[in-house]
């Protein structure tokens, strides 16, 4: 049910923007991009830092596993 609601919600958002018409007028080339940056920049930063913490968390665990592997495999290599 949750995913259905999510689909409906994102669909409505998309419909909202779907009506975009071609723009041929030349204005300040970056205005659209400048406005959107404030909106998406924060989200991008949050997800990036979230990802960094997530990968740090992962490396803590994988490092532990690797260390156990290494001590087990070292004698065999030499």
């Amino acid at each position, binding site marked *: 049910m949750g995913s259905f609601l999510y689909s409906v919600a994102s669909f409505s958002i998309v419909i909202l923007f779907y009506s975009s018409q071609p723009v041929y007028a030349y204005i300040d080339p970056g205005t659209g991009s400048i406005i*959107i940056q404030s909106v998406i920049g924060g989200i991008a930063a949050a997800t990036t830092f979230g990802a960094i913490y997530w990968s740090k968390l992962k490396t803590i665990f994988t490092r532990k596993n690797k260390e156990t592997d290494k001590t087990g495999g070292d004698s065999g290599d030499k």
Partner: protein
Amino acid sequence: MSAPSTIDGSFRDPSGRVYIYKGRIFRTVTEFGANAFEKILKTGLLATLIEDGQLLPYSIVRDPDILSQFHNAKYVLEHPKIDYISFPYEWSFPLLKKAALLHLDVAIKGLNAGVSLSDATAYNIQFVGPKPIFIDHLSFKPYTDREYWLGHRQFCEQFLNPLLLRAKLGVAHNAWYRGALEGISNEDLSSLLRLRHKMSLKVQAHVVLPARLQKKVSSTNSAETKPMAERKGLPKSSYKGLLTQLRNWIAKLEPKGGNQSVWGGYAEQNTYEEKENFEKTIFIQKFVNGVQPNLVYDLGCNSGAFSEIALAAGAKQVIGFDFDQIALEKALHRAESKSLNLLPIYLDASNQSPDQGWQQLERAGFDGRGKPDAILALAFEHHLAIGKNIPLPQVIKWITSIAANGIIEFVAKSDPTIISMLSMRDDIFQNYSQESFEKAILQHATIIESKKVTKDGRVLYWYKRHK
């Protein structure tokens, strides 16, 4: 003594221009650009990027003879010359992707060092072999607190959108990019993307919403639009977040349908027999040993197998040309995995890149660019002579005009490839024969050696052009 001539394409930036003088490449830094340049030098960023192979090296010129040629320059830099300049509309998908990632890597490193990039044009990146390198030393400026990413829109139009065109819709960017030169606008791509593509937050954030907002702004009175100075600005963490998000996204983009599997199960083109390959190899080796070329063009390079042979035989650098995207991607894979100085790029030989841009001087066309010492045109001429109805003498004239030495392979009508090309159409090529081929070569060149390599009548010709 001749004066330095400007390289057309470098005129947009008031901070400086690029010149060629006595075969050497110089960049001036004007009074306008000097302040920023001095500050950037102090950050050590340029040195780090050069050390990491991401920025074209430079030296600051002290020689008074050279400085006297550039009166208005505050600084004059000298760069090593890049043997072949290529443009984004000639790059395959993976090349454009590499260039995009390099731009973002440079921008992220810059931000960490307190430096931002003033633009995001794909023309600031060139390739040396399969490796991208950033070439504009005046794109860097000191980062000011809460500044926006001014190049965001340009980045999307020149890198992201052409990549999305192929990744989401399966259409290669080359023809459109060549026509538009500044890339694919958010508005245009937005109109093409389907509903399912627009479900993606990233597509919304970087393509659809900016296009939508741009439209909104264009329909309002410009006096109502807040000028940059009055805007709140962007925290540095958000700026970096945008760059990193795009980097992670683009790193995962692949052509729609995927080409990875093609490399895995790839065997050489089945029209080539083992023995034929062997004989061609010997012939190419002999040719390269005789000519000792620095720069070689491989027309119709396919997967780059013969480029590799030319390089192994002593050629310094090969630019491979093909119109088949899959072939280009295979050749790039070969160049990267075997560390070859081979750059495979897109060329429709019947419609080469023209001189274009501002006053048709900004981006040089195919003919006015490289000066190859030798050319390989193997299994190539029939694509023009039969495939595109271009008279054989014209094809030969064009090939021999590109380089003074070369190998051209003649493909006879009895060859399975031509039989298949003619299977659906009338044979209107009454004058297409080995005899007319030889006659055409002899009009422009001497035949040093020839060798029949298949029973179906493929013959290699080593030519040396008259003057």
